[in-house]
């Protein structure tokens, strides 16, 4: 018996009229050397021009235990069960769901049913949205926000019908709802095939390669600069910028490694949570405090930094240094001291939609048992509202990092590559509805050793 590769499956979702069939036909007509079997739930006005198309009515099967994660798509199990006996006829499967389909059961089918999961692997979920109508649809139906939340790729279609400004606003709204997703703009569903097929979207390394910051949490500051300073008096000089004031936290003994920067960031997050003390130009900046620099005056403004003995100072600023042309100047020599290291952070902003993403990032190891208990409880209480989970974890005593993948309450934890010299850390992203970020972060912190 040969060990066969699993057949990749792409799920294509989106409201009726978003352009699914157009995209499907585009995929099928292009020369990509793949033989694609299509399972179609929606019979639109446009037919599909290709051989292996199977029509199936959507059948959502809930289980007697009432558990939402056990809900699967009976039609897919039936059709895929037959397709797996015809492996010589195709090497890729596309599932086109109806606009009203909940993507959860579709995705869960590939985790829950052992016969299916032993032969097929979910490659990715592609959601088409009609740029002109998605704003209203998101307000009206749970299905459309769920389809956005589940998407590995969002094809923002019909962009020719919408202004650039509106597109930027729309993209940022969609990004807020789903930080994992990749957004592709398209007219008439014209997208490069490689952006929708063979995504290995459930392969975390691939995603991180493409979007290295997607797992990162958001911070109340955008920038950090680390300055190596001898004893003496320094001035922090700022020109006019986009804001009449700016928050800042200055830390002493700030290291330059990624791990030390993240530690500094975590301390700063806590300090940022406290009320800021306002400083006028000419005032001295205290260390380890949340301060607010007044920058209303025209021209250069200076704040004082006093260094008693040589140290590295970390400045965690609300905006980037560039925006205010911010400089550190040694007062007696009138000489600019450049930063040794800088680091940009994903800035946080307002979230309007119920559906959103939460990222947790912590250095160190977790206790597998505690994590299991926490995740188990979290998913059993909130599993209905958590659509997707992705990330990796450092288990104490395990030389490999553990990769997490989840759909609703289902999750798999698999050993992945070895940590080697990389600092041990944990990154998790949850996409869901009405998630409490603080509570989830605190819960996770209790699992750390």
């Amino acid at each position, binding site marked *: 018996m040969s060990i066969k590769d699993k057949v990749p499956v792409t799920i294509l979702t989106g409201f009726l009229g978003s352009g699914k069939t157009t995209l499907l036909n585009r995929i099928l007509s292009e020369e990509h050397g793949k033989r694609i079997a299509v399972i179609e739930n929606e019979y639109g006005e446009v037919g599909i021009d290709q051989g292996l198309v199977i029509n199936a009515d959507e*059948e959502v*099967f809930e289980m007697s235990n009432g558990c939402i994660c056990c809900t699967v798509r009976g039609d897919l199990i039936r059709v895929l069960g*037959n397709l797996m*006996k*015809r492996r*010589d006829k195709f090497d890729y499967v596309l599932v086109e769901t109806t606009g009203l389909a909940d993507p959860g059961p579709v995705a869960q089918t590939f985790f829950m049913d052992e016969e299916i999961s032993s032969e097929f692997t979910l490659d990715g979920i592609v959601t088409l949205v009609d740029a002109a109508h998605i704003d209203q649809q998101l307000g009206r139906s749970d299905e459309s926000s769920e389809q956005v939340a589940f998407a590995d790729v969002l094809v923002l279609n019909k962009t020719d019908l919408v202004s650039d400004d509106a597109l930027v606003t729309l993209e940022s709204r969609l990004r807020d709802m789903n930080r994992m997703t990749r957004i592709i703009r398209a007219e008439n569903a014209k997208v490069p095939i490689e952006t929708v097929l063979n995504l290995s979207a459930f392969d975390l390394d691939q995603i991180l390669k493409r979007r290295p910051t997607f797992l990162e949490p958001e911070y109340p500051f955008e920038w950090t600069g680390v300055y190596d300073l001898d004893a003496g008096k320094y001035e922090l000089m700022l020109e006019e910028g986009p804001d009449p004031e700016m928050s800042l936290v200055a830390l002493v003994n700030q290291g330059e490694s990624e791990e030390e920067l993240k530690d500094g960031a975590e301390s700063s997050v806590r300090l940022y949570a406290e009320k800021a003390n306002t400083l006028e130009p000419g005032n001295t900046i205290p260390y380890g405090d949340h301060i607010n620099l007044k920058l209303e005056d025209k021209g250069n403004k200076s704040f004082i930094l006093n260094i008693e003995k040589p140290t590295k100072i970390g400045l965690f600023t609300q905006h980037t240094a560039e925006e205010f042309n911010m400089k550190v100047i040694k007062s007696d020599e009138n000489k600019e001291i450049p930063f040794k290291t800088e680091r940009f952070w994903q800035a946080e902003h307002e979230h309007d939609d119920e559906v959103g993403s939460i990222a947790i990032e912590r250095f160190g190891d977790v206790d597998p048992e505690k994590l299991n208990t926490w995740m188990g409880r979290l998913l059993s209480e909130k599993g209905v509202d958590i659509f997707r989970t992705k990330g990796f974890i450092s288990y104490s005593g395990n030389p490999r990092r553990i990769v997490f993948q989840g759909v609703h309450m289902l999750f798999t934890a698999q050993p992945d590559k070895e940590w080697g010299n990389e600092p041990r850390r944990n990154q998790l992203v949850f996409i869901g509805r009405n998630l409490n970020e603080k509570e989830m972060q605190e819960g996770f912190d209790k699992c750390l050793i």
Partner: protein
Amino acid sequence: MPDIEPFSPRGMFHEGWTAEVNDYAIACGWALKGKQFIVGDVAGGIFAFEGDTGKIIWEKENTHSGGLLAMAIHPEGEIFATSGQDGNVQICNCDEGKVIKTLDLGNGWVEHLKWSNDGLFLAVASSKRVYVFNEIGEEKWISEDHPSTVSAITWSNKNELATACYGRVTFFDIVNNKTNQKLEWQGSLVSMELSPDGDIVACGSQDNSVHFWRRSTGMDAEMTGYPGKPSHLSFDDSGKLLATSGSERITVWSFIGNGPEGTMPGELCHHTEPISSLAFSNKGMLVASGSRDGSVVASFLKKDGNGDPVGAAFAGDLVGAISWRPDDCAIAAINAKGVVNVWKFKVRTNLFSKGFK
């Protein structure tokens, strides 16, 4: 499976014959009282072999465009029916494989076929509907739409047909066009077997359990704890033992005494990968099992459902179906590579089989 080496038949399996069909073999059965063995492949090829030698008698290709889904041989063994993705049912004779009648049921897949025990009726499931025809293909009854695609059908007596779908099992008197009984349970039923007396209804469920009902008392029970879904079920001819798949073990529930509620099932651990086919012998307490790993094992069972292997062989690849010859003196297995294996099975006498107790 790299850790399984092909091995010669052992125990009660004896060298028989081997043949090949053109694609993944999905359905098979003995015809003409064991003189003929018919195999259908997924692409729609049908092949008839001499039961004793494996010599090909006739073959035909592309019987159903899109592919074959089911085959059922008439209990008398003179005719058989096939169905496929083309929405058609064909009734053919076994001698030459000639089509006697083609029934067109529309666009839906026709996934299940069952002859009634007396052979007067052929039940056919296509999507949410079930049809009953007589031997010459005249339509005798059509069901209403079921709530979901019908996942299994079986005859409980000569006029009564049981259907399973999401959420329920229904018993229809197809002669008087009446619904005799509805057994409801929220779950996706993927397989169904009835005890030979028709009283016990056993269904494998998508949520990795076996649900069963006793029609006479209305009592039902759920057997949970399977790692996978029990897609394959088989009752022995006395209706006392129910063998179930759902993992690499065969789990056997015994209905003797107060069981199986509150009892431990028998467990047979002969395979390294999940069970892909199960069949009790026509008479007696022998169960044959085939696995994804390509192994075929026959086990002799005790009343409590436990038992011992009495023979084993390697079929080469995932075992799609197993069929005992009507006299139980041969056992056939078909696999995912289209290979047909038939082994002679040592003749058992009542005296002999007692020796295993």
